[in-house]
């Protein structure tokens, strides 16, 4: 089937639409002018402003900690869930289990956030780092499960069977054979969980307490007041961090695709 000119044009226009706003934002973060819409030459002024803004730095540190801990927990739980769903054959509660895993992917965040907050209030948990981390783990483990599940599903199962025929018990077969094969997908899952957690505003707003503000919450309260050049700089830093993560993830999935069909993040 040939690629017509119409197809190519729509494809290019679509990609321009997706990337242009981000490119503009990044360029304007290097603007020397205080007026965000007037170009005043190149400068790193707003970056140094950010590194002197203690409240913003504290929020960034909080976000990175939440993202690292919740992504790790989510990767453990999500991988276990994916193994159970792809290798567990049929077990009781399977429908409920997979339903609970897929629902948070589309569930409006206001509902997830509100319901978790009410749980935390009901058990009198002190709101802050841990409540946000638990909330983010709950959301992101579902994404990890989907990514790992698609890799497990496309993997050749005869390798596991061979290991067991050669006398491995199932746990050993999993650790020696399955885990190394799905590791790139597991790594991609961790990185997806990390970026989703770093990005979340709504669920964090509900589940956090006074004194533990995450970066998106801070950015949001500034953005409501209008565009500020410092925010452009922070956003550019986040985009840079995420780009690094994506490069790592795509290297990981390249490794994984060498062993078979690639597991796309999502």
């Amino acid at each position, binding site marked *: 089937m040939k690629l017509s000119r119409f197809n190519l044009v729509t494809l290019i226009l679509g990609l321009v*639409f997706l990337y242009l706003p981000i490119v503009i*934002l990044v360029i304007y973060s290097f603007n020397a002018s205080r007026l965000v819409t007037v170009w005043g030459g190149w400068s790193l002024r707003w970056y140094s402003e950010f590194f002197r803004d203690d409240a913003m730095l504290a929020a960034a540190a909080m976000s990175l900690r939440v993202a690292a801990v919740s992504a790790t927990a989510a990767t453990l739980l999500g991988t276990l869930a994916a193994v*159970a769903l792809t290798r567990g*054959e049929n077990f009781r509660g399977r429908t409920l289990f997979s339903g609970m895993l897929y629902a948070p992917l589309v*569930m409006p965040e206001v509902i997830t956030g509100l319901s978790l907050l009410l749980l935390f209030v009901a058990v009198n948990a002190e709101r802050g780092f841990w409540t946000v981390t638990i909330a983010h783990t709950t959301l992101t483990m579902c994404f990890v499960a989907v990514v790992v599940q698609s890799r497990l599903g496309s993997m050749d199962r005869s390798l596991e069977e061979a290991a067991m025929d050669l006398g491995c018990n199932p746990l050993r077969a999993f650790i020696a054979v399955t885990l190394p094969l799905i590791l790139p997908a597991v790594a991609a899952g961790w990185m997806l969980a990390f970026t989703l957690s770093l990005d979340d505003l709504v669920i964090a707003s509900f589940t956090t307490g006074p004194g533990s503000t995450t970066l998106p919450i801070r950015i949001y309260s500034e953005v409501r007041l209008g*565009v500020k050049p410092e925010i452009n700089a922070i956003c550019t830093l986040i985009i840079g961090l995420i780009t690094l993560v994506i490069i790592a993830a795509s290297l990981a999935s390249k490794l994984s695709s060498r062993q078979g069909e690639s597991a796309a993040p999502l």
Partner: protein
Amino acid sequence: MSGRRLFAGPARRAAVAPLLWMLLFFLLPFGFVLKISLSHTVIAQPPYLPVFDLTAGVAAIKAAFAALSLENFRLLISDDLYVLSYLRSVTVALIATAILIAIGYPIAYGMSRLPRRWQPIAMMLVIVPFWTSFLIRIYAWINILQHDGLLNKVLLALHVVSAPVVWLSTDTAMYLGIVYSYLPFMILPLYATLAKMDSSLLEAAADLGSSRLQAFWLVTFPLSLPGIAAGALLCFIPIVGEFVIPDLLAGSDSPMIGQTLWLEFFTNRDWPVASAIATVLLVLLVAPLLVYDRLQRRQLEARR
């Protein structure tokens, strides 16, 4: 296949931890939403009157059931604000999903027609914006759409308009933001369906005398309907409850239900009404959620 069965037992046991986690932190919290939606609003911390007190025994539970009140739900029906918010949310989600299909389909189609070795690159390019922050992408549009922003500058320079146009705080800006944010969610399932399609079907259609356009409408399009359904649900359900985009880009005169919930919760501190709003929203979304769940499961488990 003795190995396969041997593996299944331990694999099932792997479900225990994630299952308990989801029961505790996903399913159980809905119980609290329901409970608090049936409570009375009070000015206190937390700002609701608990209706259940399990420590007080059976009599107290009976009393609690008698005290359950539907006042919050009655309020939702009687006050226009809430009904209009729900209607607006569903309307916005329907219109946005239609636009997303119209824009996403040609892009996904173009991707599926690329030479094989370019396809993973194109897919990567579509996925990358999905990884970058939601909030940042909306903020990027505020940069462009503001009064003296880039869009107005370009339009003025090209003499398309004679005075700056107001873009922010309009429905146009909101739809733009929604379409921009959700486009990858629409493209990916569509692309997955279109890329799997057997091109010999199109050759057969051509051999039987149909034009390319006919072949598209009679073969490709019907076969891609599952992808359209998956993409539409993946976008429609979260858009109904969207908060950030309408809050930052749309005007304040007619809020979506996510904004109303946020307002009740954070500004008015009326937790029972916020919970009632969430309960009704969840009920509205149950049908699309169930369909989505079936599609998702079929897609993932076809490969098992």
